[in-house]
């Protein structure tokens, strides 16, 4: 069984395919000379050594038609594929700077990046790596950078907007998959950004030039030395300075200060909860953990220290930013903080709606943690308990979940300014709903006498098939889980 991945159809140099569960990349015959240059010039070795390019090995596998294959390579598989619209500000900034560094290294080896898509960068924990091995082509002295437009749209424009207008505009990248249109960015940015030299050139003037030459062909350029190497390097230097100069301070977002000021926790209660989580992580021994509602990653770190690769998902861009920038909470390359709103997780997007996978389709995880989370979904977003149980059963095999009752001060706060329409939100109904989808292995007191922490394992798929009460959507989830 073999299938071409729907994410790699655009570039004729080659494509990704999966055969018997293994990921391969076909290098097409037309890309032969560029591939040989990548491998022969020392560029591949230099980038892999620097941890900037995904490693691969050449294999004897037969390629996928229609294009004749020059080689088939097997890239090292990544623990998780994330997308630019799920990254916090500093992740996008680091991805941008990694792209520029890769381009500078490529030039030294006589090559250049032919694309600068943010989707070509992936994070392994904190490390930004280029995953598209076929992004390079031989540099011809005097030629401009064909990926300049893409770099400005994929990186510079969203970073400028997140930094100067509103952090939430990072999500524009999920609407504009080929980067934020520069004229849109120019309209949304405050006037003072025109005084920023890098933005004045690469964003405002760039947007104006795009508009000017949108309908008519530009002046006929003649082949030859259009752009000297010095000018090329100066351009990269300017983009690097411009990117580096963009900053964002997360102070003031709802959750960024939450863990630091968590006055509702007593330290002994926190220790107790921490020990429970540690014990259960040891029993389940998960390879991949999704810490949903991770905040700044207190529990993500515990899972990472016990050897798991952890996605630390949070809907607050400030919390994700703090987490990403905190070297203590994100050890090594085993924690990947992601900015995903759990009440509206990333859908599948792109051509035919299948170029970029939905968040849940990139699972399931071996273990899901949902600590001090459920009241935000059940009360703030009115999600019924059985629906929550379904969601978590689709997300992973094991579940560590905390039930926070109505008399908890945090929940009281959520209910203070609205009707309490949640007569079913109590421990009994919680256990009934989750008992449908999970075997409840252990229940312990949480951080207060009223809260409970549960250690659950999803019921085997056949249990669900038997009673015929599940929808097609749920059946699909069960099949995914069973795979």
């Amino acid at each position, binding site marked *: 069984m073999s299938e071409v991945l729907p994410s790699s159809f*655009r*570039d*004729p*140099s080659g494509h990704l395919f999966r055969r018997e569960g293994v990921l391969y990349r076909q290098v097409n015959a037309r890309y032969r000379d560029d591939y040989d240059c990548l491998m022969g010039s020392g560029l591949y070795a230099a980038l892999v050594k620097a941890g900037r390019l995904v490693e691969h090995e050449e294999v004897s596998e037969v390629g996928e038609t229609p294009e004749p294959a020059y080689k088939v390579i097997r890239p090292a598989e990544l623990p998780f594929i994330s997308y630019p619209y799920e990254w916090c500000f500093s992740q996008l900034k680091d991805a941008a700077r990694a792209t520029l560094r890769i381009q500078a290294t490529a030039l030294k080896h006589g090559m250049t990046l*032919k*694309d600068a898509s943010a989707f070509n960068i992936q994070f392994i924990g904190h490390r930004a790596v280029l995953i598209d091995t076929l992004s390079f*082509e031989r540099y011809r002295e005097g*030629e*401009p*950078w*064909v*990926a*300049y*437009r*893409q770099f*400005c749209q994929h990186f510079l424009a969203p970073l400028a907007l997140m930094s100067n207008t509103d952090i939430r505009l990072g999500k524009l990248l999920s609407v504009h998959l080929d980067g934020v249109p520069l004229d849109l960015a120019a309209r949304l940015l405050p006037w003072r950004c025109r005084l920023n030299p890098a933005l004045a*050139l*690469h964003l405002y*003037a*760039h947007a*104006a*030039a*795009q*508009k*000017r*030459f*949108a309908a008519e*062909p*530009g*002046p*006929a*350029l*003649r*082949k*030859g030395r*259009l*752009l*000297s190497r*010095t*000018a*090329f*390097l*100066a*351009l990269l*230097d*300017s983009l690097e300075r411009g990117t580096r100069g963009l900053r964002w301070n997360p102070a003031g977002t709802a959750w960024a200060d939450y863990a630091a000021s968590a006055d509702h926790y007593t330290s002994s209660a926190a220790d107790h909860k921490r020990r429970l989580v540690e014990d259960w992580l040891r029993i389940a021994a998960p390879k991949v953990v999704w810490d949903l509602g991770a905040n700044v990653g207190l529990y993500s770190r515990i899972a990472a220290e016990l050897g798991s690769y952890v996605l630390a998902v949070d809907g607050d861009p400030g919390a994700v930013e703090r987490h990403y920038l905190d070297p203590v909470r994100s050890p090594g390359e085993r924690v990947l903080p992601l900015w995903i709103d759990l009440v509206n997780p990333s859908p599948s997007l792109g051509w035919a709606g299948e170029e970029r996978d939905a968040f849940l389709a990139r699972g399931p995880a071996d273990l899901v943690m949902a600590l001090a989370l459920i009241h935000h979904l059940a009360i703030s977003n009115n999600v019924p308990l059985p629906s929550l149980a379904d969601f978590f059963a689709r997300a992973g095999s094991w579940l560590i979940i905390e039930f926070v009752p109505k008399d908890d001060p945090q929940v009281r706060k959520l209910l203070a300014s609205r009707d309490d329409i949640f007569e079913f939100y109590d421990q009994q109904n919680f256990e009934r709903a989750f008992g449908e989808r999970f075997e409840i292995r252990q229940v312990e007191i949480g951080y207060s006498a009223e809260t409970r922490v549960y250690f659950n394992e999803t019921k085997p798929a056949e249990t669900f098939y038997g009673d015929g009460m599940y929808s097609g959507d749920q059946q699909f989830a069960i099949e995914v889980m069973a795979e």
Partner: protein
Amino acid sequence: MSAIHLLQGALEMLGPQSAPYAPRAYLDPGSGSILLQLLVAGILGGLFAARAFWGKIKAKLTRKPQEDPEEDASE
């Protein structure tokens, strides 16, 4: 966009006998983006070169005769 027009004029003066430039690109790099890039990179490259040149002159002018590279290294 007078700057673009200036560039246009300058580019048109480049060897009329050479073949027209067509970017090798599987995605449209955008003619406006290419032109703007040439203009911007030209200016930045000029500044780059000027800065390097000025740096060299400054180094020559400010170098004190008694300054010895070995002394510098021992500091």
